[in-house]
């Protein structure tokens, strides 16, 4: 294995990990705000990619306008999903909520199949060139994911720690009753968190589309993102980012070293981490109050 191959695989792994991370971020946001583990998040990402595809290709609006409209649509969908469905589940058992999110995932997948069909579709994106830096060739599609992830993380960090709405959202997820007593409209903000999570997932879908093509199986991506979030320490944003990057980077190397287990390595890493450090790599500093 030449040194340039190592870099090549590293870059591919990093971009893959960034894609996982974008999905995992939304997943962790929802978990932190409502303690709902949203197993439909990968499906939301897949659905978002299809919606953008519809706007950009089928309606001929072009990539940028289509992506903007598609992301807005997905944000609205996330908001409504919480307002009309998830909000009613407050106080129900974790098991029913789990089953509900799985069901939502199945519904979204079937719906996407009915609307757009089950065969993979290709989206024309402006990121289809290649860049070569000192013998290492990297596709601009992969570069776009990495840059996009960094931009999204910085924007989200600024939003949650610098704006009043963001602070109130943090407050609502740390101590819901105290937030209510401070006039914070917790229910509305939780819906906004769902909107943000859906938007970021759709963004991941758009960026991954040139690499994976768009089909209903794209939603499997969500399970690997969940694995990354668990590896990092459930409920911690930096943990989710690091966990996803670890999984993303190790996958291509392990695939290269021992191809027969291709595609299963994410779960092997998940199991290994859970055996050694069940609380994840970066757990929350202390248990959330109920």
């Amino acid at each position, binding site marked *: 294995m030449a040194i340039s191959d190592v870099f090549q695989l590293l870059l591919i792994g990093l971009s893959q990990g960034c894609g996982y991370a974008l999905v995992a971020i939304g997943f962790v946001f929802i978990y932190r705000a409502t303690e709902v583990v949203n197993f439909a998040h990968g499906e939301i990402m897949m659905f978002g990619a299809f919606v953008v595809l519809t706007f950009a290709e089928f309606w001929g609006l072009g990539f940028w306008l289509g992506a903007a409209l598609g992301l807005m649509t997905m944000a609205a969908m996330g908001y409504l999903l919480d307002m009309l469905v998830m909000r009613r589940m407050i106080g129900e058992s974790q098991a029913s909520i789990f089953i509900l999110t799985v069901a939502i995932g199945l519904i979204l997948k079937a719906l996407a199949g009915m609307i757009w069909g089950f065969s993979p579709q290709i989206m024309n994106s402006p990121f289809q060139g290649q860049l070569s830096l000192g013998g290492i060739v990297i596709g601009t599609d992969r570069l776009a994911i990495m840059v996009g992830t960094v931009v999204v993380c910085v924007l989200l960090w600024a939003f949650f720690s610098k704006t*009043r709405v963001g*602070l*109130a959202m*943090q*407050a609502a997820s*740390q*101590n819901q*009753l*105290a*937030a*209510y*007593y*401070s*006039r*914070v*409209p*917790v*229910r509305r903000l939780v819906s906004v968190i769902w909107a943000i999570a859906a938007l970021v997932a759709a963004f991941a879908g758009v960026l991954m589309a040139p690499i994976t093509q768009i089909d209903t199986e794209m939603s499997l991506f969500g399970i690997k993102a969940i694995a990354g979030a668990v590896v990092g320490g459930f409920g911690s944003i930096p943990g989710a980012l690091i966990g996803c990057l670890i999984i993303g980077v190790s996958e291509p190397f392990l695939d290269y070293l021992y191809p027969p287990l291709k595609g299963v390595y994410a779960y092997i890493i998940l199991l290994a981490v859970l055996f050694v450090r069940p609380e994840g790599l970066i757990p929350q*500093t*202390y248990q959330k*109050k109920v």
Partner: protein
Amino acid sequence: MSALLSTRNVETWYGPIMAIGGVSIDVPEGAIVCVLGANGAGKTTLLKTISGAIDCRKGQVIFRGKEVQNRNPDAVAACGIAHVPEGREVFPFMSVEENLIVGAWGRADKDAVARDMEAVYAYFPDLASKRRDMAGFLSGGQQQMLAIGRGLMGNAALMILDEPSLGLSPLLTQQIFAIVKRINRERGITILLVEQNAVAALDLADHGYVMEVGRIVMDAPTAELRESDDIREFYLGKSDEGIRGEKRWKKRKTWR
């Protein structure tokens, strides 16, 4: 003085169990009113019913002449009621300053918010030196101060304090009660206080209610309550000795 807050025959249930029933209290504008009672008497339930965290089955909660029962807690808080819950409920992963910023949610007057924040730091100098520290790492007393400070940031007309002395040393309790009194006198904020520490609460408040198993059993100015035999024996722990110099162990409360 007209009552800023009144409850009329409030009845609240937890599933099949009635936690409080027929509770009517009046909190006059500018006053400090305390509600005393043992564990499980329904004091916290009463406060939660007032601030909308629990819905009541019967009765009214009237604030400034408007019925506010069974609204969402954020809507009740927006009317001008700041509930400082029991047990130092702060936002643990946010800094002291960020906690206070969230407390000012819904206020558009930036200058006044900045002034109020300085006022909170003036009341609680301990917090001023820890503005950037995470609230979860403050001491218990400081967390209680922060919870009260956050309540102040909402610029509410009525502040509801649920057991501010819980788990604090007697000295710290004294300090916090002194500040509550100053908040009441200097800022004209009406206070509804629930306490198990009857000595401190009776010293602070103008008027007191005593709750037992979900009902109000006494209602009198605190000066009168302090002299009442029942209060002296069961809440202040001062008993008159019997004829033979021993404590009567079977004395009944007169309201039963």
